[in-house]
């Protein structure tokens, strides 16, 4: 029965979301109740599945003799599902308020909710073809959200996103099929290539790995495939925050993790050339993203580049191909989601309340919007890596995993991490300084019209910031949950 439960968790938001434009709500309250009910119900149900349904599986369909569409709950997928199901209701609340001044809300919330179901599909996919199905659907379902505003800028961003994503997904698909036709298994329950990895096949499997790595690397914003992310900053903030800081981009790193740990394995990858390529590109992206963020003055684009950099922390950790690397990467996946969504939400709140989009225009906002900027400061400190906030923990975990692995590229990664920390302070803390300590000639009345946002927007901020602090101080339960992934991914240990 729990096998079908997975399907229910995925279908409820998809069908529920599809009904929103069809039911065509006129009243704001009605739409909000309906959408929130669907999202909250799905979250609650998913969380109960995660606690009681570990290991359940559902073979949806035998597509061909060699390919099945399978859903499964395993620990690795549960971690991603946990992140998504906790964040979606909060983001929905925020979106209600944010979208109140924008149009075509039914279409927006329809696709927004559909994306929830699809993301759960990515998390619960039991093999690569199933994941590919949901991965492509995610691309398609997010395009209308990016182009929502209908401006020329939005359409360009949408097309760019589409081109990059489809290119990546197709490349990854080719890699998958190459593995399948040469005897490897795409089932996540089967770790490693096993007997198929003969020396003759090695070159082909290496090439397939690169196709999959860079193919999924598009959504993970690995340089040079990151270009769509900053451009997509024109989308409404709930989209950039939830989808481009959490759902879409984390799907990319999630998929890379599946490639590294569940399709290939440590035995194949440790010390190989493709591992070195992956480590090098992710280490470079860490520095590249952070420098570009520092140079950028558009608030949301700055945060987008920051995401580019932070995603490569996760990819780098995964590519160490050790148990500590895997858990460190997953920890950062969770924590970065929390921190980045707070940062984006505040950026959106500032835009919503005052229309300002550049970081240089934020003088004195600390007093005008106290709650928002307090949470922004805490999240910034966390992302910079100041203990005892959660961001420190994940950075520490990644560094320790790298030191334990000990290869030269691992040290390069630690260096990249530290360089990035300095720049992160530069591009985030300076915003806080400007907001709280405006120059002497600043006139407070110039911000008289700027007020703090209402509860819809501030409540998610406060809750998430509380989580950032609490998880930084008391990470034990979460770390134990994440640690549970090691036995599955490393069956020999």
């Amino acid at each position: 029965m729990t096998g079908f439960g997975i399907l229910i968790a995925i279908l409820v938001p998809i069908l529920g979301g599809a009904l929103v434009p069809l039911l065509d709500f006129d009243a704001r309250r009605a739409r909000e109740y309906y959408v929130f009910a669907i999202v909250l119900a799905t979250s609650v149900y998913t969380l109960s599945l995660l606690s009681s349904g570990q290991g359940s599986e559902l073979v949806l369909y035998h597509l061909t003799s060699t390919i099945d569409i399978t859903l499964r709950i395993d620990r690795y997928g549960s971690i991603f599902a946990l992140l998504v199901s906790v964040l979606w209701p909060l983001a929905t609340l925020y979106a209600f308020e944010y979208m109140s001044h924008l149009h075509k809300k039914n279409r927006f919330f329809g696709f927004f909710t559909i994306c929830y179901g699809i993301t759960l599909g990515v998390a619960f996919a039991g093999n690569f073809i199933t994941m590919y199905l949901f991965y492509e659907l995610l691309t398609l379902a997010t395009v209308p959200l990016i182009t929502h505003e209908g401006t020329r800028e939005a359409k360009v961003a949408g097309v760019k996103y589409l081109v990059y994503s489809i290119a990546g997904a197709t490349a990854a698909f080719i890699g998958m099929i190459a593995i399948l036709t040469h005897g490897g298994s795409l089932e996540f329950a089967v770790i490693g290539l096993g007997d198929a990895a003969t020396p003759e096949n090695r070159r082909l499997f290496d090439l397939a790995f690169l196709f999959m790595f860079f193919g999924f690397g598009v959504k993970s914003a690995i340089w040079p495939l990151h270009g769509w992310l900053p451009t997509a900053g024109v989308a409404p903030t709930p989209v950039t925050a939830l989808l481009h800081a959490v759902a879409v981009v984390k799907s990319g790193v999630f998929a890379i993790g599946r490639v590294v740990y569940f399709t290939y394995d440590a035995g194949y990858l440790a010390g190989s050339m493709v591992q070195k390529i992956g480590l090098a590109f992710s280490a470079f992206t860490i520095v590249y993203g952070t420098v570009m963020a520092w140079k950028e003055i558009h608030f949301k684009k700055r945060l987008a580049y920051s995401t580019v950099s932070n995603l490569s922390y996760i990819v780098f950790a995964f590519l160490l191909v050790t148990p500590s690397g895997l858990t460190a990467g997953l920890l950062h996946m969770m924590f970065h989601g929390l921190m980045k969504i707070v940062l984006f939400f505040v950026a959106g709140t500032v835009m919503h309340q005052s229309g300002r989009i550049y970081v240089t225009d934020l003088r004195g906002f600390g007093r005008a919007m106290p709650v928002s900027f307090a949470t922004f400061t805490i999240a910034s400190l966390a992302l910079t890596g100041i203990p005892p906030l959660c961001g420190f923990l994940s950075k520490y975990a990644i560094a320790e995993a790298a030191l334990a692995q000990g290869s030269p590229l691992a040290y390069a990664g630690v260096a990249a991490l530290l360089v990035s920390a300095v720049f992160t302070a530069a591009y985030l803390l300076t915003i806080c300084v400007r907001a709280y300590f405006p120059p002497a000639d600043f006139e407070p009345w110039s911000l008289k019209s700027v007020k703090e946002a209402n509860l819809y927007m501030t409540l998610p901020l406060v809750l998430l910031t509380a989580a950032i602090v609490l998880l930084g101080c008391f990470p034990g339960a979460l770390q134990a949950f994440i640690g549970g992934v090691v036995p599955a991914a490393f069956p020999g240990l």
Partner: protein
Amino acid sequence: MTQLFTLLKISDGLAIQFGADGLGRMFLCLDTVMWILVGIYAFKYKEHMKHTKRFFAFYLLTYLMLAALSMAANYLTMYLCFEFMTLLSMPMVLQDGTPESIAAARKYLMYSIFGATLGLLGFFFSAHYGAGTVFTPGGLLDPAKVAGNESKLLVVAFLSIAGFSAKAGMFPLHAWLPTAHPVAPAPASAVLSGVITKAGVLCILRVMYQVYGASFLAGTWVQKALIVLSLITVFMGSMMAYGEDLLKRRLAYSTVSQVSYVLFGVFTLHPVALLGALLHVIYHSIIKDGLFLGAGAVIFTNHKEYVSQLHGMGKRMPVTFGCFTVCSLGLIGIPPFAGFLSKWYLAAGSLSEGLPVLSWLGPAVLLLSALLTAGYLLPISIHGFFPGEGEKEAEGKEAPFQMLFPMLVLALGVVVFGVFAQPLADALLRIAEAMF
């Protein structure tokens, strides 16, 4: 390290812990006394400042973090306190709200964070190669894990110590000091120079002696490089002070130079030199705070910032200049004032350490620097009291009593700690020896 108290255990190997040892107690006492004296001064100086509540809030919070830093029992806690101290002291720098002060505060922030990040690198390695986490005299590294990785650890040791030295103003990470001091209000400059730089020293002490251990670092290229850097700073700081006309920046360069005396003593890895360093920590705090409070009094009462404007000011502000002179004599190292003894021990320790070239080069540089110190401090007093023919005499009046009181206390301290130095030196020798 006794009386260990775990505030929060985050996970295995990560805990926020506090404890007391001689070194920590010394720094705590120093911080507290200085904070009180400058605080009294600041209550009067605040008439010159806007947003005073904000200033005092951060003043107190910085003290909190400094106290926590003194009591930090492991690297993580120390790093946490160091970072927060930077963040909480930065607003004092930009107190005036002018574009220069905001730029200076940003520079301070970035240098400190850069330094702290290098310190973080050290933390990652100490967590990986350490046998425990609590600071242990002689070092906490696990010999089994260290074997074979010495060169990596030496590089990291160098980088992390150099990182913390940013707070202590050592070349090449000193540039924030001369920028931040002139723009900060005088009380802030006083604590920055006098106390907060010593926080950097404390971190270096912990890392060098109680994480890596003196025996691990003695004789290595790390020690030599660090000594060279500190000597460069000693000399450079004095030279730059000599040529500087803005009084507060002259004092800032002086701090750069003097704190590197301390660092020189720390890096020499000899008990006597370390004694000299600890002694100089206390002496320099007292002296530099006295000097800055004096400079602040001149600015507050008479609005004069440049040395060239101070001819004859001594006659108008006799108490201020009197204290200023006493402190100057101490800084130069003239017995029986405080400052002589610390320099003596520094030289003695360096000579007995036995490093080639550096053991005599150090004292030589210190001597040269002393001459320069005289050159940049004495003329202020001399021209203040004896303006000479043809020089325009400055107008002004004496500073209010509330500001004079702390200065008098500090000047008295310079005399007392100079004459009755032995008990202090004995106590500090015990602390120094316990570090090895």
